[in-house]
């Protein structure tokens, strides 16, 4: 039995507007730009891809099943700028073949800095999933699949049944990511490990004409999936949803590939589709996946270096979370919401300097020319927020 477990991440940050040290207002976010990006991605990806999934779910009468996580901040932007996208996700929820996972509402790195803030953000997110889609998530994924053993423990405390994480070769040894595992001493949470080879075949290599396997047909791919039989239970394909139409444009044939995939997979009677929650219910675990240090699904390093690789990122994050007790003591919802939207991991991703050395592009919808501009802009906003805290305490005086 080989189960294809699709999980799609849907997220956009509230990007900051240009904010200099001389700016006085408390409007930090570039709504026009964010709106434009949401609508562009909606047209190229969210709406057409959702339509394809809807079509496939109906055609295969629920045998084709997938999972999503939608960050709280992207949903807020759908509500503001593209309500029809939210509607199309709601329609998918109603098919009963789509599972929604939990994450931090603000797609943040709170787990690294404040456990209480992390718990609050997860609770907020779970509540939103209930409200919008009528589902209570049983599976957790942390921002950008940042994971270590501690996260499994935290998930257990919050009552989750499973956690998604990266399947890192050096931690697996010669074991495949097609089995389920557990963290040491946390047997109640099952770990679903991303199958990075097969995931990246779609996410990165799909349109690469220099790839020996190009062009990738659904038949060929289903054959690879089938080979898992006897050596695992699940093929965990964890992807950024923007793969479909944004990273891989429609012209590459990515939507046709998706359309043909269920038939190709289901042509093997042993193979099927399951959501993460269903995998956790049905399949046993096969040993421990010991991850003492943080891993993620980002870049080639698959560690924290995308957000915490230099002094600027470290300083910005530190200064941000230092404000937590002050912000929460204020009891001002707008201020809290602003502070939280500054936690979104993208802000720190934009400050990353490692790419300047090797020239790779890290700049999808990146509003900044350089990581230095990203840091300066963020710190100016933070200064302004800190100033509001100061003024409020003076007023409360």
């Amino acid at each position, binding site marked *: 039995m080989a189960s294809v477990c699709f999980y799609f991440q849907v997220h956009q940050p509230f990007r900051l507007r240009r904010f*200099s*040290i*001389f700016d006085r207002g408390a409007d930090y976010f570039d709504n026009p730009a964010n709106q434009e990006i949401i609508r562009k991605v909606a047209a190229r990806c969210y709406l057409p891809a959702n339509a394809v999934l809807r079509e496939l779910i109906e055609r295969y009468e629920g045998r084709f099943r997938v999972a999503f996580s939608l960050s709280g901040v992207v949903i807020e932007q759908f509500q503001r700028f593209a309500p029809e996208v939210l509607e199309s996700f709601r329609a998918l929820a109603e098919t009963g073949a789509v599972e929604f996972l939990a994450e931090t509402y603000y797609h943040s790195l709170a787990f690294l800095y404040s456990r209480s803030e992390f718990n609050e953000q997860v609770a907020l997110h779970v509540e939103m999933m209930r409200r919008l889609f009528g589902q209570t998530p049983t599976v957790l994924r942390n921002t950008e699949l940042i994971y270590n053993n501690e996260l499994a423990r935290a998930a257990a405390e919050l009552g989750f049944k499973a956690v998604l994480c990266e399947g890192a070769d050096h931690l697996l040894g010669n074991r495949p990511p097609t089995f389920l595992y557990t963290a040491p001493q946390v047997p109640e949470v099952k770990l679903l490990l991303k199958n990075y080879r097969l995931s990246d075949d779609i996410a990165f290599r799909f349109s690469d004409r220099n790839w020996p396997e190009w062009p990738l047909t659904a038949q060929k791919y289903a054959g690879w999936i089938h080979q898992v039989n006897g050596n695992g239970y699940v093929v965990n394909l964890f992807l950024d949803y923007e793969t479909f139409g944004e990273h891989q444009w429609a012209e590459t044939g990515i939507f046709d590939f998706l359309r043909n995939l269920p038939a190709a997979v289901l042509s093997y009677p042993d193979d099927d589709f399951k959501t993460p929650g269903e995998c956790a219910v049905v399949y046993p675990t096969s040993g421990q996946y010991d991850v003492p240090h943080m891993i993620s699904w980002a870049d080639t390093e698959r560690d924290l270096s995308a957000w915490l690789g*230099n*002094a*600027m990122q*470290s*300083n910005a994050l530190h200064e941000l979370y230092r404000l937590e007790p002050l912000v929460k003591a204020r009891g001002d919802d707008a201020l809290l919401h602003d502070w939280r939207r500054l936690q979104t991991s993208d802000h720190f991703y934009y400050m990353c*300097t490692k790419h*300047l050395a090797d020239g790779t592009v890290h700049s999808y919808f990146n509003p900044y*020319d*350089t990581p*230095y*501009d990203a*840091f*300066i802009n963020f*710190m*100016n906003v933070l200064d302004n927020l800190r100033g509001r805290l100061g003024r409020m305490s003076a007023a409360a005086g």
Partner: protein
Amino acid sequence: MRVFMLGWEFPPFISGGLGTACFGLTRALDRLGVEVLFVLPRPVSGPEAEHVELLTPATAAAEGKVIDAAAGLFRHTQFRAVPATLRPYARPEQAGAEELEAVPGGRLAPGQRRRRRSRPAGPADAGVFASPGGHYSGDLFAEVERYAALAVALAADEDFDIIHAHDWMTYLAGIAVQQYTGKPLVVHVHSTEFDRAGLHVNQRIYDIERAGMHAATKIICVSHLTRSIVLRHYGVDPRKVEVVYNAMDDDDSREPVDLPPITRDDKIVLFLGRITMQKGPEYFLAAAKRVLEVMDNVRFVMAGSGDMVRRMIEMAAAMGIGHKVLFTGFLRGNDVRRIFRMADLYVMPSVSEPFGLTPLEALANDVPVLISKQSGVAEVLKHALKVDFWDVDEMANKIVAVLRHPPLHATLRDHGSFEVKRLRWTDSAENCIKVYQAALGGAG
């Protein structure tokens, strides 16, 4: 390969980037085994001392002459000085604006013997000072032509494959030598009249630049910015125009600078360069004023001399920030290093900078840099803050950020100083050699 190279300044007598660039490039070419015959003008002491001085590195060292630093560094290079007063960055319309050591030299009289100089000539030996309001413009162009004639005289006795002329003052010489010898000419554009003079382009200089570019088989520009200016204003074939970036060699033997520990509370923001229109000094001061609105513990240092110094002093005073702005005058040698060591940030707000070597020097001295986007060096540096020279608010925004946030300062400094180590003159020299080969392949 042997190159007949025409320059107009060389260490240690430098007043700007051209001498540094020529030095770096020539030394790198030398290291790559290219033979260079470097011709440069030097002021001479008086009409009776007219002669052409033949210098080799050995004699230069022995007699303590101009190029004493060159001893041992140049194995394949010879230097020739011709008596001409081509002062770098001189402008025909200026007279008496800066300290002048100009001497309109005499000419070799027929039959006049050549004799060796017995002691080094330098500014102190300069005889007559040009009188204010004198016919200096005529003299400058006359000097350019004289240099050309003397260069041809030299070329007549030499054997070489290619001619390489640096900036407009040598172009007439380059053209003359090319016509005389038939060897291909490469002109090297370190700056154009449009960079130096903005809208008030001097027609005669422009004509010389244009003539040089059209006579040349290949044109080397120090940046794409300069290349686009050349293409836009001089009507040359784009296929002729190449880009070779300037560089920074870090392996100069630097004696450790003995600095007393500086206890200061104020941050220091440094402007170092000629205080002239092209370098944007007024934008520096305008940004300084903005910075001082939000920060008090900062001082602005303007290190350099130039035709706008007095105006800048007055401007700072009029803005009410005179007490926060320091003018050091022209700095040289170790004083430059000392001021870099003191600086928290180096700012280059140039209006039009063909390349800009000083930011590289700053980074090599562990000082982060904020540079104008309207500069050639902005094409090359990644770990630098960049700003449009006219965007004074953004300039101030970035200055404040660097001064206020040590992690930003540290990251820019560390990445920048590492980046500058990779900008080697050897790479520039190799690219020059490729241009030479293209010129030789295509010529005739």
